[in-house]
């Protein structure tokens, strides 16, 4: 039987506010345990929450970016459960009246553009962290993260392949990082993704029983976890079994999903409106003032990269996906005036080095101005593309402007035709066998054979000869021998 996969995603995004959603404690990452957990975060008796305007604004920014209805009257509710990293015994969240209503994003798929509807997005608080290393048979609790504002973005089950799910997650990532409402660091848990997965016979309209996959902290794992789970569900059903609705943990090391022991009554959260918090009411003026602060969004930036800078669809998509990368790229273009060249270097040499060093672009040792200056020297023929890679390497390791490196290392391109001619004469004189082959070849095949001579000349010049000049002179000298 042919099966169709149905996927919906719940994405938790940690908001980049200065303080907690309901207290004035800092949310900075990496502090000593419990140094950023105040009396409110610890749920000490007598404390009351006060809602953070910054969290509200960021959630509304997201809503506007996905063309959603903004809830003019949002209500916080209590989701009750017991766990030591949740000191209040309930998570404050939104259920019936969330801040962001129905919206959508468009994603690129192999079958063209596809719309993914977003059911709603709501504000809630994060829990603390439990450390299960051995503290004399006890668990250690760090409540620094408790009360960090989250936006949970709930999609409709509109995705049909694991690739679409990953593309959707990437799009959300691009939007929240461009808006500057989240740092987007998945490894540190700033963006976390749960995948709801079910299968049904192709052509069927009813949904199959779904499982929820947790513990997925990269885009690659979204694809792998879904593929693994779909395979498991198909095998199960084709062997006569049935899928049980449950939460499953993805184990990236074994590439398998496994059932989390479902606790008795685990889903009986007994939601009710939080009496400590009044309804949050915003008016049009408040929302419109936020709309004015929205930066250029990834889709718009991509379009501009294509129409104004002449980039390909693919390059524009990659370069517009992350705000820092897009900003860096635009600075390079401003310096060198050549978008295509800048795109090649940002996505090529720079990306390669950043990946190898596991650095994000804003921590690049080579600034956009340094790279732009380097590309200027390629364009004015001071250096060749190959030499430029050497200059870049020096800039990466030792710093300096391109001009300083070219000067210090004597890498300036040789454009003096006299010097190039004598190098070519020497190469031709030392390669009589290849010269004979060249002469014997059909004229239309000689072009390919130039490569050997080019290589020898470039080697003799230490890579500094101007390749354009070498090709011209070499060809005329060799062809003269053939006549």
């Amino acid at each position: 039987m042919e099966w169709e996969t149905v996927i919906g995603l719940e994405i938790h995004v940690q908001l980049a506010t200065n303080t907690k959603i309901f207290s004035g404690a800092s949310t900075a990452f990496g502090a000593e345990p419990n140094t950023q957990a105040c009396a409110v975060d610890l749920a000490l008796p007598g404390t009351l929450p006060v809602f953070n305007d910054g969290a509200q604004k960021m959630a509304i920014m997201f809503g506007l970016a996905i063309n959603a209805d903004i809830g003019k009257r949002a209500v916080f509710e209590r989701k009750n459960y017991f766990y030591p990293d949740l000191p209040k015994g309930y998570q404050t969240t939104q259920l019936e009246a969330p801040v962001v209503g129905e919206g959508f994003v468009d994603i690129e798929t192999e079958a063209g553009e596809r719309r993914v509807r977003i059911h709603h997005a709501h504000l809630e608080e994060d829990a603390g962290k439990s450390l299960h290393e051995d503290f004399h048979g006890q668990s250690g609790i760090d409540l620094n993260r408790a009360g960090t504002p989250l936006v949970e973005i709930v999609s409709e089950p509109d995705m049909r392949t694991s690739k679409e799910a990953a593309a959707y997650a990437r799009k959300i990532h691009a939007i929240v990082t461009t808006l500057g409402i989240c740092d987007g660091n998945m490894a540190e848990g700033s963006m976390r993704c749960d995948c709801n997965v079910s299968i049904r016979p192709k052509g069927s309209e009813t949904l199959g029983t779904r499982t929820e996959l947790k513990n997925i902290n990269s885009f690659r794992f979204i694809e792998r976890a879904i593929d693994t789970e779909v395979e498991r569900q198909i095998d199960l059903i084709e062997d006569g079994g049935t899928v049980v609705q449950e939460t499953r943990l993805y184990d990236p090391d074994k590439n398998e999903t496994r059932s989390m022991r479902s606790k008795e009554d685990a889903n009986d959260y007994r939601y009710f409106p939080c009496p400590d918090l009044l309804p949050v009411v915003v008016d049009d003026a408040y929302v419109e003032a936020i709309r004015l602060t929205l930066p250029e969004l990834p889709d718009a930036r991509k379009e501009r990269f294509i129409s104004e800078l002449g980039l390909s669809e693919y390059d524009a998509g990659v370069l517009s996906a992350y705000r820092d990368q897009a900003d860096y790229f635009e600075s390079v273009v401003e310096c060198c005036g050549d978008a295509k060249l800048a795109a090649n270097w940002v996505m090529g040499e720079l990306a390669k080095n950043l990946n190898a060093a596991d650095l994000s672009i804003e921590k690049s040792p080579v600034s956009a101005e340094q790279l732009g200056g380097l590309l200027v020297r390629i364009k004015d023929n001071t250096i060749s593309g190959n030499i430029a890679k050497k200059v870049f390497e020096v800039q990466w390791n030792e710093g300096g402007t391109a001009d300083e490196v070219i000067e210090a290392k004597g890498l300036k391109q040789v454009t003096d035709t006299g010097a190039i001619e004598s190098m070519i004469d020497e190469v031709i004189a030392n390669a009589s066998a290849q010269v004979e082959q060249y002469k014997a070849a059909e004229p239309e095949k000689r072009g390919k054979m130039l490569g050997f001579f080019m290589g020898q000349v470039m080697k003799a010049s230490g890579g500094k000869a101007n390749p354009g000049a070498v090709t011209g002179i070499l060809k005329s000298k060799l062809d003269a021998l053939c006549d």
Partner: protein
Amino acid sequence: MSIDRSDVERIAHLARLELNEQDIPAYTENLSSILNLIDEMQQIDTDGVEPLAHPLDAVQRLRADEVTELNQRDKLQAVAPAVEEGLFLVPKVIE
């Protein structure tokens, strides 16, 4: 609507409350009478009435996103039964 003993036990468990065996019949009766009251209220026609989220007719005041709470870990942990390396220690929770 009335509830039975097992409902009371389940609700108590969800709320992590320990009940005295002899109190369970009274709780069952009290909770049932509350639910009966709600059943009565359900019969009122509430079409067009917006659900009440809060008894006060007021809206939430917002706080500026500025750090106002500084580190007071030592004071806050002074009342904790057990701490180590800055962490609160609790009975082991992993299953």
